[in-house]
């Protein structure tokens, strides 16, 4: 029985616990034993991206300890997975810590990546029905190179039909602190994204990144647009 430690991420923990529940449900349905290290909080990306490297290293150091014994770590967020995989190893000058960070990076998986590449799941027992357009989040598709796996996941849901939007891999304008540092620029980028999603004609906008979701859902809600936003785990677990 594969064992996975869930790194649920702070946004899911605080704002979208249902995504965490869906993630657990999907993994358990595949016979995965899921544990949740209670001490976890955040991957530290907000401080890292804002140029507070030492603070990010402090957060990372703590996570290395928390997930030290985990066999595999799964995150329902491409961006947080990229933070650990791409940046953690470069946060430490100490060789021992760097090696520890590299080991951590090597056992971290974004959810759809774990489902497709590790478990090899091809079909999901999901009641979801509808048309989906998928938003490729930046760090997931360009940082980790995960583009096919979420599409494979959607293809494994009987009632789901994928309709690609134009420029699915263009940024939604979130960018973490960027969204509040330069709100108007962030919004301008977001509206372009929402227009693309709408242009697809799909009735559900799906992403594998809670940050992008929060941003796009906030924009749609402000616009009074009824386009649904779902995390991919919610589609797979419905």
């Amino acid at each position, binding site marked *: 029985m594969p064992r996975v430690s869930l790194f649920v991420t702070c946004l899911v923990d605080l704002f979208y*616990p249902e995504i965490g529940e869906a993630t657990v449900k999907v993994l358990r349905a595949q016979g995965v034993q899921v544990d949740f290290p209670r001490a976890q909080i955040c991957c530290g990306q907000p401080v890292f991206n804002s140029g507070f*490297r030492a603070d990010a290293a402090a957060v990372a150091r703590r996570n290395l300890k928390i997930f030290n014994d985990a066999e595999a770590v799964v995150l329902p967020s491409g961006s947080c997975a990229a933070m650990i995989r791409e940046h953690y190893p470069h946060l430490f000058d100490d060789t021992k810590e760097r090696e520890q960070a590299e080991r951590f990076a090597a056992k971290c998986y974004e959810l759809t990546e774990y489902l497709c590449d590790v478990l090899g799941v091809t079909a999901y027992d999901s009641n979801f029905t509808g048309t989906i357009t998928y938003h490729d989040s930046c760090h997931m598709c360009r940082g980790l190179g995960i583009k096919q796996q979420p599409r494979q996941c959607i293809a494994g849901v009987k009632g789901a039909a994928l309709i690609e939007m134009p420029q699915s891999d263009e940024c939604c304008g979130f960018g973490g602190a960027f969204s509040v540092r*330069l709100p108007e620029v962030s919004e301008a*980028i977001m509206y372009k994204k929402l227009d693309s999603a709408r242009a697809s004609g799909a009735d559900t906008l799906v992403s594998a990144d809670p940050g992008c979701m929060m941003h796009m859902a*906030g924009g749609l809600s402000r616009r009074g647009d009824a386009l649904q936003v779902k995390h991919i785990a919610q589609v797979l677990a419905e």
Partner: protein
Amino acid sequence: MTTFEERAHLALKNIPLQTNLKRGMHYFANARVTALAATGDPLGLRKRGKAIRDAGIANIDVHLASLVTSVERNGGVVHWAGDAAEARQIILDIAQREGVKLVVKSKSMATEEIELNHALEGEGIEVAETDLGEYIAQHAHEPPSHIIAPIVHKNKEEVAEVVSRVAGHPIAADPIAINNFARADLRQKFLSADMGISGANFAVAETGTIVLVTNEGNGRMCTSAPRIHVAVMGADKVIPTLDDLPVVLSLLTRSATGQPISVYVSMLSGPKRAEDVDGPEQFHLVIMDNGRSQFFGGEFQEMLNCIRCGACLNVCPVYKATGGHAYGACYSGPMGAVLMPGIGGVREFGDLPHASSLCGACRDACPVIIDLPRMLVARREQAPHTWIEKLTFRLTRLGMTSPLLFRLGVTFGRLGLRLFVKDGRVKSGPPPINRWTHGRDFPPIANKTFHERWKHMEKDSR
């Protein structure tokens, strides 16, 4: 001094600008990808380009010394400029010594960087930009907004207005009519100019060859018709050998405009020789540091690999939203945001590295695979942080490393935010959430966080 945020605000509210940008940037969207795909191995070519640039910059001292020897062997004169002021003075001195009245210029970002036109004009020397885009920008009294397409922010009606003002009579908003007027106007300048000033897309160390990539033929006119040619280059433009050129040249034109090769590629190796029928009598090469040496040997060295193609601007969601003028600098987009704090100072340009969502499209588009997002973050680290930022991120770190403080924060945050929740969302939040709710609704903190829900979920599995 305005901030990026203030300038971006003006750009986003400028509806004609937004329309022009959309149309202008649309062209670039597929041109680069198609042209690179045509090589059969885009990534392989980019890796070769990166290797050439990595090696060239790593031994830049050797290659610059070799460039000097080669240029002098060819009969040219080399000048070293430590900063922008020195570079301006060197060129001004040559112009004054030679009694230059009129300068024709080929498109050059290095001369934009040192604000050369103002310096020359201030001493009574007439300067004529001859690249059509730069010609229009000059007459509109605007800086270029894109390193490759200087007036991508203008439409043809606006261009016609500028040209009509130069002509003193109306010129139709028709590219051919505009072109015909500019050509006639510029022809006189080429024939009467005493000095031609160009940049250098590359400078080949082993041969002392300055390579100019242009599409209008004006560069060739500037560097062959006047009796003096001055080329201005950043020290980073040196490449070791002629064998390196085909790779970086192909990457440059394909990435910049989607052309397999530009209409003109001029390779200039010194002044006119005895047997030549034309060409300048004097050739001067100004090699400029202007902050570049600070990039060397540190986390920003990779930036010296940049070949100035503009691909990172063309894919950048921020650049595409605001256009180049919002950056308030001669170099804009991701490359500008990394370059400018280095060559112009962190005090003035420290906010530019934040003008990025770190989406990484720039790194994917870069012909020499420069890790721009990494350096954008490094620039953020280097820029002076305000006390509010320091406090915010210190508190964030505390919250991220202490479960107790985190839980306290969640509890109070949830209660506090509840005061602003209406219909299950926050439409207008307290600072700093108001910067989010400016244009997006904010979700309430869940009544039960995942941490709080896990207890039951853990039981489920047993």
